[in-house]
């Protein structure tokens, strides 16, 4: 039985081909795993690429916007010019064969600004606020970029790798008057 198994090269999904044709210079990396496409795009072209996916390729559903702090992962850091953060967009389409695509955007700590995608997907509003709250990444053009999970007077961004798990004493030094005001 073992002899009959044929190892075939996975055909490149059409979506990836289109992206490679249109954004050849902007794509830093791409991979396909089980028909799921993942691309890394530079920050300057990220909005154009996402807009293309939304309007021309019918990726109408923005599943998630989040970020990854790679500051303790040397191999990832080296790969993308020591960009500390990676903003991740998960997209889904109800049409076509490649239903899921992941777009990753490397972001340097010196310039933590990424264009907002709230104009493309309204659902990005809270997701971007969460990413801002947890990682401190600013989404330029966002209608209301403020904290969504942590209290308004909270300092720091807790999902960054350099933030201590038990906090910096917030849970012992809470202030009722300040929060109720």
């Amino acid at each position, binding site marked *: 039985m073992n002899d009959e198994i044929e190892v075939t090269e996975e055909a490149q999904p059409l979506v990836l081909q289109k992206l490679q044709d249109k954004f050849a210079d902007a794509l830093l990396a791409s991979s396909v795993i089980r028909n799921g496409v993942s691309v890394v795009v530079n920050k300057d072209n990220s909005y154009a690429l996402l807009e293309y996916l939304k309007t021309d390729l019918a990726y109408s559903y923005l599943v998630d916007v989040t970020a990854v702090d790679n500051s303790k992962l040397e191999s990832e850091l080296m790969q993308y010019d020591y960009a500390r953060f990676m903003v991740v967009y998960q997209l889904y389409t109800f049409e076509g064969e490649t239903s899921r695509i992941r777009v990753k955007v490397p972001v340097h700590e010196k310039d933590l600004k990424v264009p907002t995608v709230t104009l493309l997907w309204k659902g990005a509003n809270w997701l971007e606020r969460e990413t801002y709250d947890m990682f401190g990444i600013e989404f330029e053009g966002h209608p209301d970029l403020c904290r969504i999970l942590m209290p308004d007077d909270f300092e720091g961004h807790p999902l960054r790798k350099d933030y201590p798990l*038990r*906090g*910096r004493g*917030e*849970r012992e030094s*809470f202030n009722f008057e300040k929060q109720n005001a």
Partner: protein
Amino acid sequence: MGLDFGSSTEQTDGNIITTTIDKVVNWGRKNSLWPMPFGTACCAIEMMATLASKFDLSRFGSEAIRFSPRQSDLLIVSGRISIKMMPVLKRIYDQMPEPKWVISMGACASCGGVFDTYTLIQGVDQFLPVDVYIPGCPPRPEDLIDAVMQVQRQITKGELPKGSEVAHNE
């Protein structure tokens, strides 16, 4: 209840009971504790099971769950409380009329449980006067019933809730 059958004459024999007003009031209180549920996690599921027919908290007079703090006298904190949720819970407790009791249900409410993180209060007793703690993650319905009975025992003894002691000391 410390009931005392009054001096017996022919007309009153067995028909009159003398007691103190405190004892009657406490008897009424203990058998009609109205809980205010504050369920933020899986402990709340166990609390629902406690109230449902199988465990039936109404056997102890506490089935009248009130979602308004102004109509309840037993706060059951079942679940983890974050720094952001804390002012809400404190406000609910402040709105409850005296006398009021607090049950801290489960590991998270009592000490933070497994969530030893930046955002969780490590025990609601840091800002609420807790009368009865329930261990467990989550505790079984029997544990919650036991806690309610423990509150009932405190009431029968005429003990003041922790909250009013705090108020008096201040």
